[in-house]
């Protein structure tokens, strides 16, 4: 719906555009929400909270590699270092050019390079001559070419700029071990003791000398690049290898070229109006099944003797444990043995009066909070399930569109598919609106929000019913007008709800229940 929009360089305010394949470089904009500016509300002036466009790009694995090179080149325009050294330094500063330059200009070169764990390239070259770290043995013999890892005399030793050298076989095994077993890439240091100089990518390829290990290494450095870069995020869809790049980090909807739409802030499905942190709490609450354990805590007690969990299903307080090996007789109220109760029941009752009152209050509190949670949870789940069903609707609609094309052109029947798009969007928004409402304390704005929610829900149900039942080929033109009206109305209701919530965030109307 929006991935076809091509934008020029100026539009995303970013100077790194991929040189090799500009056409595969997509710029997506939340075009479906452009309609917000059309909303005309009689009592209010035009809303100050506008849904501005959020520019982002979808990158393939190759483009990510290229993107890294571009950043390195940019930094090198200033630093004039070898690309592999710049890469290490950039990685040290989490690919934040500004911090890097700041540190570069405010600290001494010695300190700057030391902090990034690279050898100062401007230092005197005498330190760079290769030396074997194992020649310090106390043999008293003249220095021989001993590899410091395998302790074998070797013909040729290789190493990094720090000067520690080891034989080719040891390097190979060392790097393979670090990459494949320990999953390290950028943080592999020289194997010498007390040397924290990092292995750069060019040296890695030279020393690892193995296609498989190098491929794994490339994968790892790309991964760390995306993960430590706050302006990038992997698409969370299964087996999707794309990443999204934005120009500033914000929880906004992004759509990958694989079709998956998600929140850039947290990686979950797009969840407006609820914020990332509240959604996280909600999902945790649902997953934890904490309500089940609460129920168990409220409605059951443990047998005082064998600790089996018991639910009371009758009025009598004389409990007999059903556990065949226990069969304990006890009082449900005081959990004491039943034996003295035959004569002294009243004392049990008196003793428990205060406690019983507390228990009743606790139970009432619990019941109302449980009911509240279930109210929101049921509606959340209901919209989620409906949304899943609506995906089946796409197939039905597709068939109808084919039928209709006997009377109408292809372009004229597209309205149906678009209506299903709107329906799915509304379902998602409704679903998350219940999470938002669950954590919201009552106030006047919440009442307005709930009114908006109700209107939107009604509109959504109408279009859902219409798409599911009323479409036949006979009344084509009537139906088209109806569907168009309904989907326009739905979209409008959705925008009203979202704009109101955004305004609330801006003006601090929302009071959340911690």
């Amino acid at each position, binding site marked *: 719906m929006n991935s076809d929009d091509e934008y020029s360089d100026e539009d995303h305010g970013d100077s790194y555009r991929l040189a090799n394949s500009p056409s595969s470089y997509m710029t997506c904009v939340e075009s479906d929400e452009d309609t917000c500016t059309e909303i005309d509300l009689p009592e209010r002036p035009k809303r100050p909270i506008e849904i501005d466009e959020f520019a982002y790009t979808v990158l393939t694995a190759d483009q990510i590699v290229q993107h890294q090179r571009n950043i390195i080149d940019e930094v090198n325009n200033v630093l004039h270092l070898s690309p592999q050294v710049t890469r290490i330094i950039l990685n040290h500063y989490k690919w934040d050019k500004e911090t890097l330059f700041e540190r570069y200009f405010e600290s001494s070169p010695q300190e700057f390079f030391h902090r990034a764990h690279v050898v100062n390239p401007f230092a005197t070259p005498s330190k760079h001559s290769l030396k074997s770290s194992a020649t310090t043995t106390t043999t008293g013999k003249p220095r021989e070419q001993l590899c410091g*890892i395998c302790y074998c005399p070797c013909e040729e030793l290789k190493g990094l700029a720090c000067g520690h050298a080891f034989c080719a076989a040891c390097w190979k095994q060392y790097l393979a*071990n670090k990459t494949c077993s320990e999953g390290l890439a950028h943080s592999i240091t020289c194997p*010498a*003791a007390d040397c924290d100089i990092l292995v750069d990518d060019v040296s890695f390829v030279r020393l690892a000398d193995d296609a498989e290990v190098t491929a794994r290494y490339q994968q790892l450095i790309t991964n760390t690049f995306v993960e430590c870069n706050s302006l990038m995020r992997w698409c969370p869809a299964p087996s999707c290898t794309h990443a999204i790049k934005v120009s500033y980090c914000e929880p906004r909807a992004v759509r990958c070229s694989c079709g998956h739409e998600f929140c850039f802030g947290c990686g979950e499905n797009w969840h407006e109006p609820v914020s990332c942190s509240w959604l996280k709490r909600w999902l945790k609450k649902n997953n934890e099944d904490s309500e089940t354990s609460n129920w168990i805590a409220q409605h059951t007690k443990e047998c005082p003797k064998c600790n089996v969990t018991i639910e009371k299903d009758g009025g009598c307080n004389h409990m007999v444990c059903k556990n065949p090996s226990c069969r304990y007789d006890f009082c449900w109220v005081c959990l004491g043995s039943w034996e003295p109760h035959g004569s002294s029941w009243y004392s049990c009752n008196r003793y428990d009066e205060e406690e019983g009152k507390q228990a009743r209050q606790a139970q009432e509190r619990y019941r109302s909070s449980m009911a509240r949670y279930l109210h929101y949870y049921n509606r959340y789940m209901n919209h989620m399930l409906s949304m899943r069903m609506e995906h089946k609707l796409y197939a039905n609609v597709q068939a109808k569109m084919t039928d209709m094309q006997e009377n109408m052109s292809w372009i004229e029947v597209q309205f149906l598919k678009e209506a299903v798009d709107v329906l799915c969007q509304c379902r998602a928004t409704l679903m998350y609106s219940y999470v938002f409402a669950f954590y919201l304390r009552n106030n006047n704005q919440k009442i307005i929000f709930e009114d908006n929610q109700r209107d939107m829900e009604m509109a959504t149900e109408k279009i859902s019913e219409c798409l599911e039942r009323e479409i036949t080929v006979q009344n084509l033109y009537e139906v088209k007008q109806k569907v168009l009206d309904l989907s326009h109305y739905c979209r409008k209701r959705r925008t009203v709800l979202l704009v109101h919530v955004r305004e609330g965030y801006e003006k601090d109307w929302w009071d959340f229940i911690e």
Partner: protein
Amino acid sequence: MANMAVSRIKREFKEVMRSEEIVQCSIKIELINDSWTELRGEIAGPPDTPYEGGKFVLEIKVPETYPFNPPKVRFMTRIWHPNISSVTGAICLDILKDNWAAAMTLRTVLLSLQALLAAAEPDDPQDAVVAYQFKDKHDLFLLTARHWTNAYAGGPHTFPDCDSKIQRLKDMGIDEHDARAVLSKENWNLEKATECLFS
């Protein structure tokens, strides 16, 4: 076992055998079996520490991926030290974990452990009880460490007061090692130790 680890250990052996520390008897390495995977190390307690005069035996297990991964080392001799478990002998030392470098050797490990005995790091403890005593009741810590060195590592200093308290607990049917551990933990307060044992 991988060839490289074996050949490397063999070569290291020669190095340790010829090193000055061997001549001075401050470190030692022995083979346990012929597979070169298990070794026994020994370090002398450094001078001017409560461990002076003691010989501490170490269990060294060489992994197949040695020297790319560190050897597994623990104290066989019981020792009272903030960075070494008084129960298991497990060691908290950076070079045996993340800071291991492939170019390090058994010799560097033994020397580092010796240095650890001389300079404990109570802020990064393995044994919290010992670390607490080290920081809060340092005199008692020195006494306890010396006593343990005497009892387990052949150190020269004897402490009749400690021995008599241990004897009291032994008379109640407590194992000597347990009695020593509990008394050390309770700062040699016999009453508290008894309470701890029998509650």
